């Protein structure tokens, strides 16, 4: 696949998801298992992406400057810091450690 094909296919898939919500009969949502799985799916995917983004280097699992950066991010989130502060702080921690080592 080319990058454009990936970008367009993924965009169509996501727009289709949004449309589906307005076309599906509201009854489906009343099924507790469906709404529970949908909410947990978001949680699982985000958590999995955090794991991979923090520890994966290609197909290797490594401990590097990203780990303390994510710990700092978690601390800031616990202190209710805004999104952009959390993201910038994590970048600064990782960049700082890499510059020093």
């Amino acid at each position: 696949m080319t990058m454009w094909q990936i970008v367009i296919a993924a965009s169509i898939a996501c727009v289709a998801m949004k449309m589906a919500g307005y076309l599906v009969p509201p009854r489906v949502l009343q099924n507790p298992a469906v709404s529970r799985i949908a909410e947990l799916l978001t949680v699982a995917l985000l958590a999995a992406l955090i794991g991979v983004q923090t520890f994966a280097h290609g197909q290797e699992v490594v401990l590097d400057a990203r780990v303390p950066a994510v710990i700092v991010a978690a601390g800031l989130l616990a202190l209710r810091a805004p999104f952009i502060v959390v993201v910038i702080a994590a970048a600064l921690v990782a960049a700082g450690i890499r510059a020093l080592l």
Partner: protein
Amino acid sequence: MTTAQAEALDERAARAVVVREAWAVGIATAAYGISFGALAVAAGLDVWQACFLSLVMFTGGSQYALVGVLASGGVAAGPTAIASAALLGSRNAIYGMRMASVLGGRWWTRLAAAWGTIDESTAVALAQPTAHLRRVGFWVTAAVIFVGWNLTTLIGALIGDALGDPRVYGLDAAAAAAFLALLWPRLKRVQASAVAVAAALVATMLTPVLMPGLPVLVAALVAVIVGAFNWLGREERA
């Protein structure tokens, strides 16, 4: 003052509060389009592809997921990158079901509503007490984020393009922090926290054995299994 006038005044005051709330959420959210634009370019997309995603896909979590998988697996990981983005976007279908009754109308209204259905517009809308205020909250939030998010994506992509190696600036850690910030408000219940820990472990442990992108999809099964059996969930009686 008559009762009708008092009510009209209350209505206008309530409307102003909703509009202010929508702007605050909208601007805060749009600001991190800069990090998305920079990360997208770092993952190998060009400026136009980054902008296309913000314009058409327009759902932050899926956009980050797509470029996250492409950053580690390259174009070869395309199918898993698409699947990750689509699965993460499935929550927008649930939001749409909730919003459909509030935002009903002609097909083009529904089309625009679907396009603007994201975490923030739904959250601001559903926090309002009346159907009218819900509509105001939804449309103002969606419009502010749409314009802001596309502008900041372009700026981020142009900056990212000029920067070079993203690791020097800690952009890889910034992406992990962005996912964490998106996850954080969803961890209020034991069940969600347990799923998060298990999914992160599964994805990390499978990284050396599966091709890039797949560990994330396999970890999603944790949610399906825990959700279907409602393990660690609250007691629900029929």
